[in-house]
């Protein structure tokens, strides 16, 4: 009886460990798959501009068919990354997602401080010398996803918005490597 109790408790303890590990690992696993998919399309620090979402869009769950997206895998392990995103009406936003899925910043056309949105993404603990005067955003991870959302009010307006979104840029800056 006592031996059965010990076995039972051991199995439950093991199950609890597996449970927590699986739940904790899931976001990293799913985000890793997204990063790999986007990297395969264009490599790091390069925006891609997919067509408007349809039933065939299967990279990210619950896509919005009313938004023109641009996305890039960012990698700030070696250099800071300057990101410039021109605005389009009626709504544009640039957001960053860390490797654990956290949304660590979002700027839109109302909070951009001008057109284009112009920011520098740095890795965790990176020295900011040489970046004075720039809008610097520290990412909690070296790699992650940048996502631009643009509202497309009607199908007729997509071509104009598409031309604007293709001028978004992400360029590494020659600056000090991350500090210890």
């Amino acid at each position: 009886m006592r031996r059965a109790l010990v076995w039972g408790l051991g199995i439950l303890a093991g199950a609890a460990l597996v449970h927590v590990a699986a739940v904790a690992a899931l976001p990293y696993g799913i985000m890793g798959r997204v990063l790999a998919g986007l990297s395969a399309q264009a490599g790091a620090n390069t925006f891609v501009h997919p067509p408007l979402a349809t039933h065939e869009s299967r990279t990210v769950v619950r896509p919005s068919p009313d938004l023109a997206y641009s996305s890039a895998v960012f990698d700030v392990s070696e250099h800071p990354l300057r990101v410039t995103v021109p605005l389009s009406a009626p709504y544009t936003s640039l957001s960053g997602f860390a490797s654990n899925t956290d949304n660590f910043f979002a700027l839109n056309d109302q909070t951009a401080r001008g057109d284009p949105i112009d920011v520098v993404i740095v890795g965790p603990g990176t020295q900011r010398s040489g970046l004075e005067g720039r809008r610097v955003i520290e990412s909690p991870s070296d790699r992650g996803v940048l996502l631009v959302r643009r509202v497309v009010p009607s199908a007729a307006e997509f071509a104009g918005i598409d031309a604007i979104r293709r001028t978004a840029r992400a360029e590494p800056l020659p600056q000090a490597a991350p500090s210890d």
Partner: protein
Amino acid sequence: MRIVLRLAGAAVLAIALGLASAHLAVRSDFAGGEVSNGPWRTSFVTGSPDADLYTRARVAVGGLLALAPSETVYFTAERDAEGRPLDVRCAYRVEGEELPARWWSLTLYGADQFLVANEAARFSFSQTTLARAPGGPWQVEVSREPRAAREVANWLPSGRAGATGRFSLTLRLYNPEPAVYQEPARVALPRIVRGACG
């Protein structure tokens, strides 16, 4: 030899129990930070660094790359006004007013969390694509097939003819008015009324 077999069996059982319970926890209706408003639910920790273990996992499965509520609030309904699961075999009328945001949209997703294939290639309606009097109330007919010619303008297909299964609706409110995230349970959201089921 016998103890090794027992240990191996116990390990397999522990792993199976751990994975099954993790799957249930991530897919269950429970999530920290969730707010209900009729059949609509939203989470105010979506995408946030404050999200707990389970919310982060649920976001990864059902709302990856979602914005924080300060930028966008997402309300999702998986049930109608009477609490019944949204069923592709049934027709629904979604009735609403202008929503308190800079821009908003209503999108339909299948049980697999992706947009649903349909003959009309229509997946959503928005503030700017709905047929209605400017700024006035609106109605959207959700069904596998349009019920009548007058409803075709705002017909949101839930699948191809003969399709079955469940679906969900998501309202996106971009740059919502403060009342939306201060008192999300009191915001006037659209009603989802079930009609005939075939």
